[in-house]
């Protein structure tokens, strides 16, 4: 009786969920490639997804069928969850993996596991302290940090007080930006004083907002410029500056990455510059490099996807527009 009921309930479940997923769409002979981001809700990752889809479409059109599986950790920014995703797809024996590691050490073993299972891994976005990957396709984050530092230094005329609110511990990409920023100031702008550079914002906008408020309540009266190493910190810091009436150019803000909100802030003049990566290109080249590697072609161990500095003045140029408003719908559909 009991087991019957449980069984009936579960069978019902299968019909509810199973039917929605069109059985039989499993790839017919093509390569199956899983792309594993750090999270799925940030707009940055959606652009990566769009780039991967673009590669899928182009490869399929060129007679090389590829199935892209997009799978982020169930809980964002949870190392253990990302390891689970990597392990699950190793066990599933996909043909290859494109991974943006959440941590440059914790993901070493899963990537080596993939290597032992003969599944090549292309690392994107953020580094890994291992050599067992096929290629590393990412922005030169250190250079991006230096660009941000140079622009802020110029805006401040070479002297003043600046704040650096770091992103999160163990995130290699943002740490490089932070180091690039600090090195640029130290070498080329000796008149600028860094008030604080040891605070971490944390993974979400909410945490970053609180951290920004705390930092500004201490240094709000003396600060002239702020560097924010990623999108969530940029948006939250700008919001916190608006709260205390110091936005709009009184405190110069240089951010990193884009989102709807940070572009709005740039347009309204609350943010003076955004260092912008090319996530669509990163997703695209990540998949392309992996497919080349699977085809036995030699691939470079390090591929740079470039950064540019976007300001209010140059943001309307067509090149910048393509970067700032990538055609996500074209690749992802409207559902995403």
């Amino acid at each position, binding site marked *: 009786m009991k087991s019957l009921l449980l069984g009936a309930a579960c069978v019902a479940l299968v019909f509810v969920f199973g039917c929605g997923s069109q059985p039989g769409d499993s790839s017919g002979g093509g390569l199956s490639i899983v792309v594993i981001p750090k999270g799925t809700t940030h707009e940055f990752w959606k652009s990566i997804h769009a780039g991967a889809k673009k590669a899928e479409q182009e490869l399929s059109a060129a007679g090389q069928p590829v199935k892209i599986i997009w799978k982020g950790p169930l*809980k964002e920014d949870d190392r253990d969850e990302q390891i689970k995703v990597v392990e699950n797809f190793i*066990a599933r024996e996909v043909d290859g993996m494109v991974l943006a590691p959440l941590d440059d050490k914790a993901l070493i073993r899963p990537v080596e596991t993939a290597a032992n299972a003969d599944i090549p891994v292309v690392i994107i976005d953020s580094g890994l302290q291992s050599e067992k990957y096929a290629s590393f396709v990412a922005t030169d984050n250190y250079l991006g940090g230096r660009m941000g530092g140079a622009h802020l230094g110029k805006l401040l005329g070479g002297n003043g007080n600046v704040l650096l609110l770091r992103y999160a511990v163990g995130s290699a990409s943002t740490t490089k930006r932070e180091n690039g920023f600090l090195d640029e100031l130290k070498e080329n702008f000796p008149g600028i004083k860094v008030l604080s550079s040891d605070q971490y914002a944390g993974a979400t906008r909410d945490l970053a907002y609180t951290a920004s408020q705390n930092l500004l309540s201490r240094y709000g009266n003396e600060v002239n410029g702020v560097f924010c190493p990623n999108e969530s910190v940029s948006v939250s810091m700008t919001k916190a500056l608006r709260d205390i009436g110091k936005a709009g150019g009184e405190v110069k803000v240089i951010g990193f990455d884009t989102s709807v909100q940070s572009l709005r802030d740039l347009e309204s003049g609350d943010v003076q510059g955004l260092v912008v990566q090319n996530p669509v290109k990163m997703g695209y080249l990540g998949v392309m490099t992996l497919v080349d590697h699977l085809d036995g072609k030699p691939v470079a161990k390090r591929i740079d996807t470039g950064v540019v500095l976007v300001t209010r003045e140059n943001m309307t140029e067509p090149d910048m527009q393509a970067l700032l408003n990538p055609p996500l719908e074209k690749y992802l559909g409207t559902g995403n």
Partner: protein
Amino acid sequence: MKLAQLGSRDFLKAVRPFVGLFVVLLLFAVDAELRSLFFKGGNFKTILTQTVIVAIGAMGMTLVIVSGGIDLSAGSLVALCSVVTAKLIEHGHGFAAVLALTVLVGGLAGLANGGIITAFRMMPFIVTLGMMGIARGLSKWLANNQTVNPDEPLESVNRLMDNSQSPLTFFPLPDGVWLALGLAVLMTVVLRSTVFGRYVFAIGSNEDTARLCGIRVNANKIAIYALAGAFFGLAGVMQFSRLTQGDPSVAIGLELQIIAAVVIGGASLSGGAGSIPGSVIGAFMMACLANGSGIKDWPNYMQEIIIGVVIIVAVGMDKVEPMLQRFFRRGK
């Protein structure tokens, strides 16, 4: 009050978690795409490895829940103990010392839980909710707000959860899986056949009656929470081994997964019912669901909804069955 009969409800109830697992596996077998992807030795090794932390936590949690309590500090204690493990390795301790001291730290935190609950007659929910914050804070403080990466890794600890050498075959299983299986057998015996185990059921069934029967309820409760803490400590060692680093922000919400595993395994949150094999199967079933819906390329929100529905369905059977039985009886 017959101690021997406590908790040993009818046979059907005992096998229900197994039936649930069987049904889940059956569902995966029905799906043509999943059948070929899911039923592979390497995949089962992966799932077993992913189950270890929740399963070890669930053994401790089963004791607490059967005794009529709850422990919300489990996830935070796992994080704290993963940091403690990292710190101990940094100080150059060997395998046995790392394991023993970490388990001890977990046990002491559990002792504090049990001590406060009994001494001040406070609700376990509140006390362990407080401990959840305290342990999370302590782990961040101890780790200086970042992950702790020992310069000289201790291979024996790292190997506990390592399946990197042969990812595509079922054997050899990582040491941690064997350890968890061994502990499951041991704890099953402890809970079913020892005086302490029977007391746990007695306290959970009716605390006042247990006291009147001469059971030292407070001392046993403290022992239960301390033992549970020790299990969370061991789970912390496993968590360290998985990440090969101590991470103060790991295992957020793990306590809810552990509680779900225990409840799917047939335990009642009002105490007096539950079993170790059931809880372990519950943990395994949830890992199967996560793995299956993960590799089947469902979006994450779908996966969260499915697991949520399964928890309610699995536990809801408890309430629906008597209702239906009454209904059918009336119909005759």
